[in-house]
């Protein structure tokens, strides 16, 4: 048996014995408790941070083992990773790994893996979504601190998070590339207020965050003061290229279940699902390639192809599921049903850079086309 196959068998056995039977809460303190407890269990079993370095609490294995873990994780029906652990594990953590100081890594990465901290993202603002570079939240350097004033929005799980990856304007006169800073913002800092927002999918996942003279140590800047645009591009590259790999694998397995549930008397639906199966397989192949190519580095612009394809795929799968089951199936109502997934999937082509931004990146940076008007 190859070492990869042996790894797969061990992962399968551990998951079979340890996957929680209860459904995960969707939001709020119960969600936080569930996510941290499940992450701790994985860490104690040696299954957290498969390809993270050993000195930071990981297993020190390759991306291939990480992929196998995600495959087995989905196969076992383990709790969705589209939860409060997502930012820390998939883009704040990796950003710290490539851009952070040794001290920052040592302080913040092991707690993510051990299920001790939850991270959230603070990039978008009410007036700055796709045009992220126009953000206004101000960070003024005063001695060895930065004093922050402003507002962020669409910060998923900010109400239950411990730490935020926060992008602020620290030089109001400079151009974008020299004007922003990416800082580690503890959520219990005085002057910080969080307001959850209920979405049309029926959950309170997104939050507004208000900063009123919030003082952050200068030592919390990641990647250099006024160099935050470059650091943020690393974060977004992870978010687009590799962060959704586990979710994608899970979604392709859900398509298999839809196919199994689709009666032969519905040939058009079977054909539609078969098309989705092919689409899922192709995106998986593309995503595996991006993940393998970016081992120990930041994914390149082809990550936008993964992000775009995954986002459109998720919408199509949930739409097909709602059409397959109709409104009378019990699983289509409530926070965990397909109705929720269908409505929540509307955000897939918005989060992490809209589908239009991804198409611009693909056109300009992958295909080498002239830059369009902005």
């Amino acid at each position, binding site marked *: 048996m190859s070492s990869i196959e042996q790894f797969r068998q061990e992962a399968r056995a551990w998951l079979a014995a340890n996957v929680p039977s209860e459904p995960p809460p969707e939001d709020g303190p119960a969600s936080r408790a569930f996510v941290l407890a499940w992450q701790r269990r994985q860490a104690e079993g040696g299954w957290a941070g498969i390809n993270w370095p050993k000195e930071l609490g990981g297993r020190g294995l390759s991306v291939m083992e990480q992929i196998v873990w995600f495959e087995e994780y989905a196969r076992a029906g383990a709790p969705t990773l589209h939860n409060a652990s997502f930012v820390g594990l998939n883009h704040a953590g990796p950003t710290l790994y490539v851009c952070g100081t040794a001290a920052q890594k040592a302080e913040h990465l092991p707690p993510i893996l051990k299920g001790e901290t939850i991270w959230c993202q603070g990039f978008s603002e009410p007036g700055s*979504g796709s045009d992220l570079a*126009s953000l206004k939240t101000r960070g003024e350097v005063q001695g060895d601190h930065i004093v922050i004033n402003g507002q962020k929005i669409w910060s998923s799980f900010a109400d239950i998070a411990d730490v935020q990856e926060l992008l602020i304007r620290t030089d109001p006169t400079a151009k974008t590339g020299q004007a922003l800073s990416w800082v580690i913002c503890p959520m219990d800092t005085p002057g910080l207020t969080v307001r959850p927002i209920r979405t*049309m999918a*029926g959950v309170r996942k997104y939050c507004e965050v208000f900063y009123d003279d919030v003082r952050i140590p200068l030592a919390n800047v990641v990647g250099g003061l006024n160099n935050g645009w470059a650091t943020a591009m690393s974060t977004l590259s992870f978010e687009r290229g590799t962060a959704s790999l586990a979710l994608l694998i899970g979604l392709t397995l859900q398509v298999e279940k839809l196919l199994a549930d689709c009666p032969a008397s519905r040939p058009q639906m079977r054909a539609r699902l078969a098309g989705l199966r092919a689409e899922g397989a192709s995106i998986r192949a593309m995503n595996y390639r991006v993940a393998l190519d970016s081992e120990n580095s930041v994914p390149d612009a082809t990550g936008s192809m993964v992000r775009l394809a995954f986002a459109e795929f998720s919408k199509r799968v949930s739409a097909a599921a709602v059409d397959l089951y109709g*409104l009378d199936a019990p699983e289509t109502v409530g926070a965990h049903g397909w109705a929720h997934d269908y409505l929540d999937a*509307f*955000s897939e082509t918005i989060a992490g850079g*809209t589908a239009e931004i991804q198409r611009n990146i693909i056109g300009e940076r992958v295909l080498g086309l002239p830059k369009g008007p902005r």
Partner: protein
Amino acid sequence: MKYELTDDQASVLAGLDQLLGGFDSAPPTAPVLFDYAAGLDRTLAESGFLDIAREDGFGALDAALIVERLARLPQVVEAAASALVAPALGVPAGTRPVALLSGPLTKPARFLPQAQVLLADRGDHALMITVEPDNVETVETLFAYPYGRLKTLDGVAQTRIDDVAALRRRWRTALAAEAAGCMASGLETILEHVKTRQAFGQPLGAFQAIQHRLAMAAETVESTRYLAFRAAWSDSESDAAIAAAFAQTRIAQLTYDLHQFAGAMSMTLEFPLHLWTYRLRALAGELGGGSRQARAAALATWGEAA
């Protein structure tokens, strides 16, 4: 089919608009998933607009015009089945709200918690069932309309109706007309947004990527409206099935496009778009969904050979 309103139709719609003046704004309370507009329901019942298809000189087309107009309101009220379906099935005037159902009789149906009568598609016939409020269980759903299911079939008063084709035909026309109104208001909401929201130093609506998709959305809205009106005008099975199939199969892409251009804000209950998205998604699944209407259209148009 003429594309201009007759004097009578223009007069009816002007009267309706006057009546609806107080119902044009979204529910002012804290965000709610849905709330049946009882006030609007009473106003409509008293006005007689929903009985227009029963009046001499008027018919299904006039009812469809009213249904489409009402569906533009950010209010959830049962109108389409009352105005378009009930008159063709012999339901007495004033017996409403009307719920519609296909499939098992204990399946959830829109408006059943409010309904006085349930019209059910039973395959080779239809049933008119008197709804007793105590016999309705409310069903949890995210799709904005109030849903309920019958608790028991024991002892329910029901009348057999042989002309099940009339139920399906009018139901298809009704859902297309309602969808057209919801689509129109959703599009209008987003057009306002992209004209005012700025990104990269200009209004969102100045970007061609956005203009192109909203142009396609406008085509969907217009097409749905005219197909619905044509179906009501001809009252033919093929036109009704085509209108419903078109509306239902376009709903997913249309709602995706509309939400896309209000960004994450469109996902919140503080932005009104969800009011129509919920309803459109519910309409997309009625009578088995778009592919079933498309098969029905093929059958009605070309027969078994298709």
